[in-house]
């Protein structure tokens, strides 16, 4: 089974995000970038499938600027076999990305797509669902357990009330949640090996996809700040403040 793993390069999860003074977006220059944490979980799952003999080949795909190559290299170092960079200088939206991925899935005849449930920059939580829709495939979203059965994939999903399991007809799209696995760190020999693994570069035009944005960003601003609170010295003082000052209990 050929597995496609779409991945995204984002601001590192530990970096404090700063809004640009001109309100056009957030500051990205000289900021540490990394693979989106949910994408790491997706790569890890695909690598485990390959180790278990259920995946035959893992293709890591990223869409974005030329630097997304670095993120693809990380996936290759974790165990993906080859990479595809869909290079675009236009700011891509989930719908456009889903269309690009659909074209790649068809070109590669991939039989399973595993990706993160959301990217921690845009927090959209859309791409996997949109890709499944465009392919006419089943979707398992926010998945914390995957079990391959004959012709189906059983996906346990993290939903608001607890857990839910669905049986998905294969081929299908799975978006992963935090509890699926603990991603590995790439070892130095694997990082060296990854440098020799192939990365193809394509453009949206090569794939016949129009990625013109549908949304215009009017402005990006800082959220309203909370005013600083006070430290209390004891539990008794805390309860007193809640009762008599905040009047909330």
């Amino acid at each position: 089974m050929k597995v496609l793993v779409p991945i995204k390069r984002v601001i590192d999860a530990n970096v404090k995000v700063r809004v640009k003074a001109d309100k056009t977006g957030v500051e990205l220059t000289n900021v540490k970038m990394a693979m989106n944490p949910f994408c790491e979980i997706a790569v890890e799952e695909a690598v485990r499938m390959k180790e278990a003999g259920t995946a035959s080949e893992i293709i890591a795909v990223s869409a974005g600027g030329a630097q997304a190559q670095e993120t693809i290299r990380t996936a290759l170092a974790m165990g993906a076999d080859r990479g595809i960079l869909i290079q675009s200088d236009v700011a891509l939206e989930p719908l456009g990305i889903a269309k690009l991925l659909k074209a790649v899935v068809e070109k590669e005849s991939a039989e399973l797509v595993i990706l993160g449930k959301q990217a921690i920059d845009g927090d959209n939580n859309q791409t996997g669902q949109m890709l499944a829709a465009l392919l006419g495939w089943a979707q398992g979203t926010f998945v914390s357990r995957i079990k391959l059965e004959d012709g189906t994939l059983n996906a346990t999903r993290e939903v608001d009330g607890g857990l839910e399991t669905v049986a998905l007809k294969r081929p299908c799209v799975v978006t992963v949640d935090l509890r699926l696995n603990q991603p590995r760190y790439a070892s130095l020999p694997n990082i060296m090996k990854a440098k020799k693994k192939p990365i193809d570069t394509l453009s949206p035009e090569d794939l016949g996809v129009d990625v013109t944005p549908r949304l215009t960003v009017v402005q990006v601003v800082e959220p309203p700040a909370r005013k600083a609170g006070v430290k209390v010295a004891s539990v008794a003082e805390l309860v007193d403040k809640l009762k008599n000052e905040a009047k909330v209990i």
Partner: protein
Amino acid sequence: MSVLIVAEHDNAGLKPSTLNTVTAAAQLGGDVAMLIAGSDCAGASAAAAKVPGVAKVLVADSAEYGASLAENLAPLIVKLASGYSHILAPASTFGKNVMPRAAALLDVQQISDISGIEGPDTFVRPIYAGNAMATVKSGDKIKILTVRTTAFDAAPEDGGSAATESVEATGDTGLASFVGQELTKSERPELTTAGIVISGGRGMQSGENFAMLERIADKLGAAVGASRAAVDAGFVPNDYQVGQTGKVVAPNIYIAIGISGAIQHLAGMKDSKVIVAINKDEEAPIFQVADYGLVADLFQAVPELEKELG
């Protein structure tokens, strides 16, 4: 302008998140219709008809909608879409799962998790875990939106009398089927709608220690939540998680116990009215957002708190 709400419900009644979505729809203006797609969902459609502001309830009562599978719901939404300028659902795991699938089939770029409405095509939404607020304008003919429920008050449950109309079901796509569920059972209020939330983090050290928080929750009528660290450590189930990728809550009081306050956690609770933090590390970032902070060992402070609350 005409708005369609894709209701989240459990067939017997509406989920509270649907009532918040009604308020967002009312801010857009125009006629509001609500789609109840379910199986044996007369209870939910009757509840929908009573919500003030809902002019029409569309009912698709058929077995294939029983488990709210996106594969079956999306074609139904697509079939109904042409009559509407806006299609809304709550940004719960239900809406997050279903709406992008419908949006892609309609060739619409969805706008997720809106927290403000600036105009018929312009919306505010948090990005980067709420560290920035983006205002975006949609050029699509139909606007597909999921609604951040904490940003909109719940509409009243009673007072309306909408007409009910049944719509033809679109059939089972056969792509997916429901196998089973393990839902967390609790007598306590639901996390996303509770007036008071008490959450534990890695500092709780074990699942057993959450009993301390549960006792306080029962005294206050509160819901119990957790940070990602506590869920990852297996102390409590996933549906307790508050944060960027878990649940977003905005209660009157949020009590954070043994939670350091990573930005991902703050994203899920910083709109709470009053934030209380108890943590032994006085440098913990949670204190930067807390209205009342107590630097103390939680294993001493929490039992004391229980006693003080009487």
